């Protein structure tokens, strides 16, 4: 069950009334609201928030790697509602092994590049993304640099893109 301080927030109340099973956890810390969402439901939750709660902006999508803890990845969605002037953070916890989640590109077009960036730097796959390719690192790069177990020392020479 969610703590009282959260349940009083109108967004949380609306979301709970819609589908209580989608919210796994949440906190209100340093005047910022964070909700942990069931990863399978993320696209629906985002759709609901955009339509019913006026969260018309996706400021960014990013991730945090808690290696070696499990679940290893946290995908973080930074939402903003311009009409309400409110911000909300959604989180989805994903296992380290073959991490994947549904894309939110169909809700906000802004998600396109941000999800590509998370894919490139963390190796998290976004299902049904229109163009899930590397964005920062060159094609054919080995590994995902923002993972905590990515080697920061040693030698690695990039061989360039394979031209077929």
């Amino acid at each position, binding site marked *: 069950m969610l703590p009282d301080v959260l349940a009083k927030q109108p967004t949380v109340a609306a979301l709970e009334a819609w589908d209580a099973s989608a919210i796994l956890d949440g906190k209100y*810390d*340093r005047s*910022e609201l*964070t909700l942990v969402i069931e990863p399978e439901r993320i696209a629906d939750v985002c759709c609901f928030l955009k339509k019913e709660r006026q969260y*018309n*902006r*996706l*400021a*960014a999508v*990013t991730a*945090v*790697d808690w290696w070696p803890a499990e679940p290893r990845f946290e995908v*973080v969605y*930074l939402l903003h509602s*311009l009409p309400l*002037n409110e*911000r909300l*953070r959604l989180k989805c916890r994903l296992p380290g092994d073959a991490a994947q989640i549904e894309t939110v590109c169909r809700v*906000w*077009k*802004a998600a*396109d*590049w*941000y999800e590509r960036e998370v894919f490139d*730097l963390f190796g998290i796959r976004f299902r049904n993304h229109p163009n899930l390719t*590397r*964005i*920062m*690192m*060159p094609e054919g790069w080995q590994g995902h*640099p*923002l993972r905590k177990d*990515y080697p*920061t020392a040693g030698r690695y020479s990039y061989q360039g893109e394979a031209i077929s």
Partner: protein
Amino acid sequence: MSDWAQAPPPGDELTETGTRRMKINMGPQHPSTHGVLRLMLELDGETVTQAACDIGYLHTGIEKEAEAKTWVQAVTLTDRLDYLCPLINNLCYSLAVERLLGLEIPPLAQWMRVMLSELTRINSHLVWLGTHAMDIGAMSVFLYCMREREDILRIFEMFSGQRMMTSYFRPGGLYLEPPRGWQGPVKKFLASFPSKVDEYEDLLTANPIFLRRTKGVGHAALEDLVDYGVTGPMIRAAGLAWDIRKSEPYSSYEKFDFDVPVRTESDVYARYQVRVEEMRQSARIAQQALEGMPSGPWKADAPKILLPDREQMKTEMESLIHHFKIVTEGYRVPEGEVYQVVESPRGELGYYVVSDGGTHPYRCFVRGPSFGNLQSLPKLVEGRLVADAIAALGSTDFVLGDVDR
């Protein structure tokens, strides 16, 4: 080979008009892409039918690097993200860390931050105006803009010792005490600046060539821009009066009196008008900060976080210990996460900082405004002329350091 004459290369089918579409590559070294942005354009005659951006040429892994630095060392990395507004990047990072630490910043430091942030905004808009005007053929504006920018860079140098990579705002306040007599150059600059803006406007605002290159060019609807994550002057030129300095004030911006310029045309010219007006408003804010500058300490009272004064360090054991701890290990920041936003010259600049209670940032994600703004570019250029693509590109005012990080 002779095959070239007969068969078109794959992907180049004939269009309805009997012409052939051509794919061309613009950049990464094209002068109007300001940095290393590569655009892939598909053209039908002179019309852009499809556009795509290829970014990442300037990716330097700053977010990864920040994880290997102590909390205060990471400030120096933030300068290098958006190199046209280093101080605003310093400010956003410092505010995020201060919120994690729960630090109170004295009024003098807050006002100084506002004043220097606004000078940074002018500096950034000057570079934008100069290069944008040059892209579309008005060469001399660039020289005028650089003339005033030089004065601002001298002011930065006076405060921090650096012209560009300032690192002047640190978690807890300022890096150094403001230099003696700092008011003089700032006052002199602010007194003359409004008339300088008039000069730029004389050159451009009613210039028929400039008007024809910019009016109605690069148009996009407000809803699309919001959907693409566009922020800042671009969104204000599309009719939305949203400025983070007003909607989510930080560093005592609520105490300053200024207007948020808005236009509704959402074209290159409207973006130009918004930015020029923003320069005037920034000068107004800086003037208010200069006149009402409070007195008092310039850094927070937090001996375990900020380096002690030299004099104290030499006479007090406690200060010496603090100095040693801060320099060798760094300070610890309580566990937690914050997303701090500020209004950068380009829009919403956000730092999502996560601490695991250690001496280094566990994760430091930067939401660069240019990243979102650039994402909307295909929307601005598709269906228009190639020459207009240059104007539209300039009007998004991206900085590749901020896009690629």
